[in-house]
Structures are given as C-alpha cells and as structure tokens.
C-alpha cells in the first residue's frame, strides 16, 4: 500500500441559498485504499461527491488529482480524471444485457474508424466480471439480476471506463447480509487491482470492517480523518454527532429496558391473514407493547404489515382492534379503525415531494381543520399545527411552507411521522423507519416510537438492523418465506436469537 496522494481536496466551500453545505472541507485520498466517508444527513458528504462528479462547482477551494489542481465542470471531465460513481438509484438500461450495460459509456474500441468493435467490448466485460463476480453471466438481461448484482455491474462499468477512484454511495442499502459480504469482497478486489474506493455509508460496522481509513464530516467540515485501525465505533459516533457520548442508542436503551414495560389489553389481533406471499399468520399486539417483526429481506415482513393496513389485497384473514372485528381492506378503512402505516419507501410511498411541510403533515387529518361543516380547511390552523409538529419532532426546515423535496432523509421521515401523529391512531406500524438516516435522527425516532408505546398505543416496528429491533422492542416475531417461524420475548430478544430464527436452526449464521 502506498501513501501517495491521489486525490486531495483543499478548503472546499459550497453555499446554497440559506445553507452553508460545505465549509472548508479538506482531506486527501491515498491510492490503493478503501476510504470510508461518514457523517449525518446534511453533513456535506453528498455535496462533496457532487463536486467530484462535476455536478456542482465549489465556491472556494480546489480539488487536486496527482498533485495538479483540476476544474471539474461535468461528468465527462470527471470520467477523464478517472472518477467513477455508483449512486443509490442505479442508472441502467433495463432492456439490455449485462455486457452492454458494462460497456456503455466506456471508451469503445473502434473498428474501421467509426464502428464499435463489439466483440472486443464483450470480451473485456467478460474478463472483468469474471474477476469481480463470476456468478454474473454477461449475456443475461440486466433485469434478471438482483440489486446486489446490478451494483456489481455498475462497478464493472466504472472500472471499464478506467476509473481509478470509485465512489460508492450507500452501496449496501437494502441488501441482505450475504450480499453485503459479497459486495465487500468485490470492493477488496477492486483495491487489489490498484483502484481506490471512496465508500459512503451510514453503517458503522461495515466502515470499520471494510475500510483502510475513514473520513468523518460534520456541518460541512472534516472533523476526523484517520486510519480505520486507529478508530472504533465510539470514536466515530462521537465525531459524527459532535457530542462527547459515544454510547450507542442501543446500549443506552438496553440499560433502560429492564423487565420490559407494563402492558395493557390486546389492542390489535390478527388472525389467519394471508396473501400470495404471506401464509396465514396470527398474532396479538398489546397496548403499550413494541412488537418487532424480524426476517430477512423478502421474508414477507413488509407484505404482512401492508396486509394489515389494507395497502394490498388479502386472500383471507381478519383484523380486530381492541376486541372488535374491523374492516381494514383499504387504507381509508384501516385509518378509520385506528391503524396507521409508515411505509418502507418514504419518497415514493410516504409523502408528496412537491407538497409543503404543512400540506404533507395535514394530509390525513385535513377534515380536522375545517370550520363548521364546510369542506374548506383553514390554512392558518394547519400552519399552527404543523409548527407544533416541527417543534415537537425537531424537524429542520426553513419553514412550514417549504416543499419537503429539499429536506434531508431524516427530516422527511419525521414529516411522515408527523402526518400520522397529527392524525392519531391506536396502532402504529413502522416499516424501516430509520433506513438511510443519520445516527442523531435515528435516536429521535426511537424516542418517538417509545413515547407512543408509553402512551398506551400498540407499536409494530420493522427493521433490517436487528440490533435496532433488539434495542427498541419488547417482543419480536420472526418471518421466514412468508411464514411466522418463531417469537422471542423479554430477555430472549437478542440479535443472535433473531438471526437463528431467520435462517432456521439448520445453517445458523453465527459464524
């Protein structure tokens, strides 16, 4: 491993109206390393990446490559400098084969002047894929690949375009543990080939296990830049949050949760609920209880809660709230019965991006703001209620009439939460409420969820981070292949127990 500086950024500043997104960020990226980049939502990571990609220009400061200052005005220049990017939203051509996706955008070998030498292109992509992930057949349509494999294809595409610096933005979002391991090994292979990886993630575990060095950003500045071996989880968290306490939310809550909570009557009773993908499932939820639903991606967790809420059509089954059978076959009916669902994909299912904070927060409780019996809501009252929510949930925005599109992920999630709190319900279902949001916002969301339970609401909590479920839930039911395969309660709620149930006792993944 060499200590040669490959890319360095010096005192970068980027201002947006009303926001100082990057405030003098300085760091260097050595060659042949995997460098982690972490920080809260809004810390300035994505602005820095956009500057490397040429999507935005710095107001001040400079970027140097191999010691020479460069100006990056667009994606072509970024590519010419050897930068390759993999964003969360994959930019691919779904109708084409893997090989075509890999070779598109690369400098194509020519034949007879203008024609593309396709045979050579295919050959190159085949070699590259064989090296990165032999399980991917270059002839298959890209649609047939898993998300993880598609990401590997994106990496291959960047490498074929001679990328020396590969920027991966949250590459492991919504991947299973196995897929994550595999993606990590692909990253290591990229490094062996002499490539450098800038790895952006909210998951500190993978930053610690994968990277050679780590950069932490906070409020637009670099607050920590060190070899990974010299840091640990606690140091990273305190650098990310800026607070002295490195104790994780999980650890704190664990300490608090002794003997569980007092629990009330059964508030939600699900019996024999089934659909195409969910086998008949029955369970009860008590008032004041925080029930986790565990399982691997694809085990049917999201499908189950969507059935309860009437978001998808069911084949059979009944739902009772507080002992009374209720019709929850459509979302309006479920709402009337006192059940709300915070959906998994907040951008596409949770909110209207072009609506303002106010319009999103009051969307499900609009009739409350109507005077007399007329169907005309009072905007003044809506604003008042939204301001209260903004304060209560500490939503950071420039005002209640701002469109939610420009809020950070964590603040957007809080807006969706605010919508349901404004509406009120007896049963709150949260599907991946903390996905893709920063440590501090996560903590705030845990507190909210706990607050609801302590008010006597029933709460169902789904998370792919089992440590989070362990920290938050009194009881966890586990699904596998659409079936309820087990349940753990009280002190038995542990990551190990949940994982064992997820995989079944055969082939336990404790290793």
């Amino acid at each position, binding site marked *: 491993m060499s200590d040669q500086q490959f890319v360095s950024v010096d005192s970068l500043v980027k201002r947006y109206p009303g926001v100082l997104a990057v405030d003098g960020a300085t760091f260097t990226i050595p060659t042949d390393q995997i460098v982690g980049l972490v920080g809260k939502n809004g810390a300035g990571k994505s602005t820095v990446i956009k500057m490397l990609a040429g999507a935005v220009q710095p107001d001040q400061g400079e970027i140097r490559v191999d010691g020479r200052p460069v100006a990056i005005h667009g994606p072509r220049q970024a590519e010419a400098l050897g930068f390759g990017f993999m964003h969360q939203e994959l930019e691919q051509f779904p109708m084409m084969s893997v090989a075509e996706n890999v070779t598109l955008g690369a400098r194509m070998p020519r034949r007879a002047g203008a024609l593309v030498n396709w045979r050579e292109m295919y050959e190159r992509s085949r070699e590259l894929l064989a090296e990165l992930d032999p399980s991917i057949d270059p002839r298959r349509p890209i649609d047939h690949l898993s998300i993880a494999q598609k990401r590997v294809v994106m990496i291959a595409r960047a490498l074929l375009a001679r990328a020396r610096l590969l920027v991966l933005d949250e590459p492991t979002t919504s991947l299973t543990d196995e897929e994550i391991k595999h993606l990590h090994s692909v990253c290591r292979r990229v490094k062996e080939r002499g490539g450098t990886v800038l790895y952006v993630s909210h998951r500190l575990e993978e930053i610690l296990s994968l990277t050679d060095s780590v950069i932490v950003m906070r409020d637009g500045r670099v607050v920590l830049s060190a070899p990974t071996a010299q840091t640990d989880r606690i140091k990273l968290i305190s650098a990310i949050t800026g607070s002295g306490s490195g104790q994780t939310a999980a650890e704190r809550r664990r300490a608090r949760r002794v003997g569980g909570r007092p629990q009330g009557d059964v508030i939600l009773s699900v019996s024999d609920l089934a659909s195409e993908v969910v086998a008949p499932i029955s369970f009860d939820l008590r008032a004041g209880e925080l029930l986790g639903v565990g399982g691997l991606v694809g085990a049917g967790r999201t499908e189950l809660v969507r059935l309860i809420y009437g978001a998808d059509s069911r084949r059979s089954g009944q739902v009772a709230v507080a002992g009374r059978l209720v019709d929850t076959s459509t979302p309006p009916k479920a709402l009337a019965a006192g059940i709300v669902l915070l959906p998994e994909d907040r951008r596409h299912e949770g909110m209207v991006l072009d609506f303002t904070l106010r319009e999103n927060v009051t969307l499900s409780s609009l009739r409350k703001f109507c005077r007399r019996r007329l169907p005309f809501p009072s905007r003044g009252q809506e604003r008042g209620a939204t301001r209260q929510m903004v304060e209560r949930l500490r939503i950071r925005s420039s005002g209640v009439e701002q469109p939610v*599109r420009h809020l950070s992920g964590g603040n957007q999630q809080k807006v969706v939460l605010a919508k349901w709190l404004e509406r009120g319900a007896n049963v709150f279902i949260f599907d991946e409420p903390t996905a893709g949001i920063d440590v501090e916002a996560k903590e705030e969301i845990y507190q909210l969820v706990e607050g609801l339970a302590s008010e006597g609401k029933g709460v169902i909590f789904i998370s792919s981070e089992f440590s989070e479920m362990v920290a938050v839930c009194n009881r966890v039911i586990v699904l596998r292949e659409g079936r309820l395969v087990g349940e753990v309660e009280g002190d038995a709620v542990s990551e190990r127990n949940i994982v064992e149930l997820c995989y079944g006792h055969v082939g336990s993944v404790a290793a």
Partner: protein
Amino acid sequence: MSDALATTKTENPQPPGGASAAPRTGRISGARDALAKYGVLVALVGTIVVFSALKPHVFPTAANLKAILEQFSPLAIIGFGLTVVLVMGDFDLSVAGMIGLGSAVVVALMSKHGVNYLLAIVIGLLVGMAGGAVSGVLIAFAGASSFIITLALGQVYNGFEYLITKQQTIFSGIPNAYAKIATGTLLGLSNQFFIMLGVLVIIFLLLEQSTVGRFMYALGGNREAARLSGVRVRELRMVGFMIVGVCAVIAGILITSQNDSQSPNSGTPFFLPAFAAVFLGSAVLRPGRFNVLGTLVGAFFLEVISVGLTELSLSTSVILLVQGVILAAAVLLSRLGRASA
C-alpha cells in the same frame, strides 16, 4: 443526504415547468425565475400591445374586449374541467366527443321531441356525468390507461352523436329561450361570460380551497403516497372525469345556443386549444402546477391571438402558423426559467 442524488419518478402528464430545480444562486437565475413566473403574462401583454399598434381602431376597443370575453368562455369552461383531471395525472381525450354528444342530446330532445329546454339541459348534463362515470370506472377502477380509454370513448360518443343527428345540422325546433342563454347579456356582457365565471368559482373553490382539491393535488403528486395516506384515489379520479363530462356538455350547450343550431363535430375545434390553455396556464401564477386561474389566463391568451389575427385579415394558414409559434414560444419561455442549473 444521498437522497439528494436520487431521481424521482416522473408521472404523465407533466406541466411544462414541472421539473423542480436544485437550489440556485445569482442574478441570472433570479431573472430566470421571473421569466418562468411571468413569461406567459409578459407574452400576453406583448401580444395585446402589438395587435393594438397594428389595428388601433379595432383591437383596443370595448366592443372587441366584450367579443373576446364572450367567445373564450366555452373554451375556458372545457379547460377548467380538463384542469381537474390533469391535476390528478389523467388525460381526458373524449372531451371533444362529449361536447358533440351532449349538445346533440339537448338539441334533439327539444327539436324532435318537444322537451322543455331546461329539462333537456338537465338530461344533457346527466349524459355528461354518466360518460365521465364510465371513463372513471374503466380507468380508476379497472386500471386502464386514461389516454387510450378516453380516446376510444371519444369515438364512441361521436358515433352516438351521429346516431342521434344522422350527421345533419339541426336548425329547426330550437326554442327562443335556449338561444337566449348564450346570446343574452347582463350588465352589457354576454351571459356566457357569467356562466364561465360561475364554473370558474366552483372549480376554484374545489381545487384550491377544499379538502377534495388538496387530495386531488396529492394524488397527482404521488398517487401511492396519497393512497396510503387514506385518500380515496379511485373515487376522486372518477369524480374528475365526471366534472370534465359536465363541463364539456355546458360548453356544448353554449356553442349550440350561440349558433341556434347543432352541427356535427362541433367539439373538435375546441379540443387542442383547450389542452393548450391548460398547459399554458400551468406556466402562469404557480409555475409547474396545473391551476384553474392559469387555465383562465391561457384560454384568454389563445382567444386574444385568434381574434387579433383574424382582425388583421390574415389567411387561415398564417393564423395557424402564428398561433402555433406563439404557443410554443410561451411554453418554452416558462420552461427556460425552470431548467435546472
């Protein structure tokens, strides 16, 4: 934070200024914003100034303004209806067919069956509602594409119209009271103008002030999020098509009342201008958002162009050319302002 890099799903139909721009800085973008917001209004004023300069004794007169206000009313009413469905992301291409069918039903009932004109109008409006309900069931409940279904239904309405009228113009047997609806005046202005204002007020209250309108905009912005928020998506979309149907029949009544006759295909000339008015309007006042006041401005603009060009005694070919160019230029102007940096 990585969310900022994500692209969003775009939904048809998109207003021309619909692309939301990243935060921008500087004086240039300020000028762009102003262009986006006022581009169409500036073009409208410019057009009026040009016509007034070219025809100083004809164009800028009270009589001419009255004529424009009268003539643009049916167009605006159709535009108001279309605004409602476009807000929800649906198209209704059956509108021209419904103008013809609705007016044929009303006129034939009076002329051939001697039905009282008020009753005939009520029946006509019910036909419009029923047609909209059929579109709504097929599109919102059965999940068909609004584009194709309404195209097909427009053809069906045409067929029914011909069945009723045998493709003949109906002149006789239309009561005087019916003709008075469009030709009568109040305070010196055409009744048509006041009927248009009435429809405008109702649809404005619906879209901009009521809970229903909020839900309609929500489902237009993100249908799945609206559904999961408890918005009755299917019912609202159906209501939208019913509103278009009723607006189409009202326009059909005004057209036939004005002409004192019903001719085949009377809706066709309104089809493109009505959509143009709505899209132009989405670049006015609240750029990037279909809105009914914008539609009003859009329809007025189109009528100003058409009246002004006619008064310049230009040939039809020139009128079509100029209309098209002005429309494209106005939309581009607003689009320019919204192009992200």
